[in-house]
């Protein structure tokens, strides 16, 4: 069962994270903390998602999740990115009952095993929640009229 959690894809992303490091310019930033373990992440986004940058400390699950997030969402059209985000949340909150769609989630499907560990779901979600806040601050997904 533990191999379900620590899949090679996850360990790879953990050891070789994609797009790590905070970059300028950005339009929204959020800092999130997991109060039980002290893990932290900062995520920055531009409003067109042309860049998503992040930094923080955390376990393999949260770090790999950030790397996968970057890989999946960066440079995507906004509606598509939000759909992927939805799918990842659904997978994580599915208690292991949700079948992930590789076409949508790419390497994210490796997190299917995490959903069976309630204590670790928070780790996997940490970067995604920070992204959500950062995106909201950047006005991502808000229609231009409303934004203005």
């Amino acid at each position, binding site marked *: 069962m533990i191999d379900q959690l620590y899949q090679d894809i996850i360990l790879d992303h953990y050891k070789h994270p994609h797009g790590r490091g905070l970059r300028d310019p950005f339009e929204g930033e959020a800092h999130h*903390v997991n*109060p039980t373990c*002290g893990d932290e992440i900062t995520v920055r986004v531009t409003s067109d998602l042309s860049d998503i940058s992040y930094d923080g400390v955390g376990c393999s699950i949260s770090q790999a999740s950030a790397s996968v997030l970057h890989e999946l969402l960066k440079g995507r059209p906004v509606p598509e990115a939000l759909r992927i985000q939805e799918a990842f949340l659904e997978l994580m909150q599915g208690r292991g009952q949700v079948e992930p769609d590789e076409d949508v989630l790419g390497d994210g499907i490796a997190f299917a095993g995490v959903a069976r*560990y*309630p204590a*670790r779901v928070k780790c996997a979600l940490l970067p995604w929640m920070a992204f959500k806040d950062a995106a909201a601050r950047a006005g991502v997904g808000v229609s231009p009229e409303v934004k203005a």
Partner: protein
Amino acid sequence: MTFDVARVRADFPILGREINGHPLVYLDSANTSQKPRQVIDAMRDHQERHNGNVSRSVHTLGTESTTAYEAARAKVAAFIGAATPDEVVFTKNSTEAINLVAWTAADFLSLGPGDEIVVSEMEHHSNLVPWQLLCQRTGATLRWFGVTDEGRLDESQLETLVTERTKLVSIVHMSNILGTINDPARIVARAREVGALVLLDCSQSVPHLPVDVAALGADFIAFTGHKMLGPTGIGVLWGRMALLETMPPFLAGGSTIETVTMGGTTFAPPPARFEGGTPPITEAIGLGAAVDYLTALGMENIHRHEQELTAYALKALADVPGLRIFGPATPEGRGGTVSFEVDGVHPHDVGQILDDLGVEVRVGHHCARPVCTRFGVPAMTRASFYLYTTTDDIDALARGLEHVRRVFA
């Protein structure tokens, strides 16, 4: 469905006990209820197989404990119709729940001289003294509803009592001494009008009636596990999330925090913000099992059973010479808690002689001394019923009271 009290009783090991050579007749459930096998077993099973600390571990035992603890919260939330489980804060009893609001109110209500808190003369000390002390600390003024001769809340002064100066009204839902069930609708409406918050002390109602926080319209309710088939050591504060979010922590410490440095701390969202340190984990799980038990029987059915008992008891007691009942004389708008005096015999002596016959009633001021003062007695004798009470129990009480009168003839 007829309520099968014999089947219910079979679940309560203590009901098989003898007291002073007589079968136990337990008429003190308003003080604390007895526990069914299902609750005792759930607690033992947790301690023997799953015990770990919550919210702090990734290991299996910690995860099992956290899951069970949070499942108990969800059960309690569903039981009272809370909008989300996160509105349910576990405390150690009602008293802590009420004090949580009273100690933090100075801050989140910015209380000061000129502000008013309104309670009633019918309150349990646990819903009176915390507000007296809050007023002392802040300079706010305490005011209160009176009680009518029939033992009802006197709402005739509502408009002058609850005014723009009122910041919070805290009222008992069902009186633990008079049995009166208050309908909070008018008070809640008036409080809304003047912008005051409402706390309902549901310590006696949640165990005995269907209670739905949305229907009640209050901002907070408090209740306690040991009166509703659950263990000691666990209570509940329910509050509207929007309000809980504005409140500072109370028993601060482990688990209440977001991040801590020596220089300062930021806090977790509710309910974690208010659950400092290791919570009563086994006790919450026991309360969850109690809620399952009550839900399976149906609160409507339990209430109906108790209404029947109350009608029966009010009649049986009316036949005892020299007996005076305090509180509503008919079962309408009252629960299965009946206080009385036996002419010429002090409650202590009544209780002692009944105990000799295995009949367990409570005597004293019932932590509601102002009610005793209101009715001109230092103490009362109280019989209180629950889902396992039978008409035989009430007959035993009536026979016992005859005996009391003979001893003191």
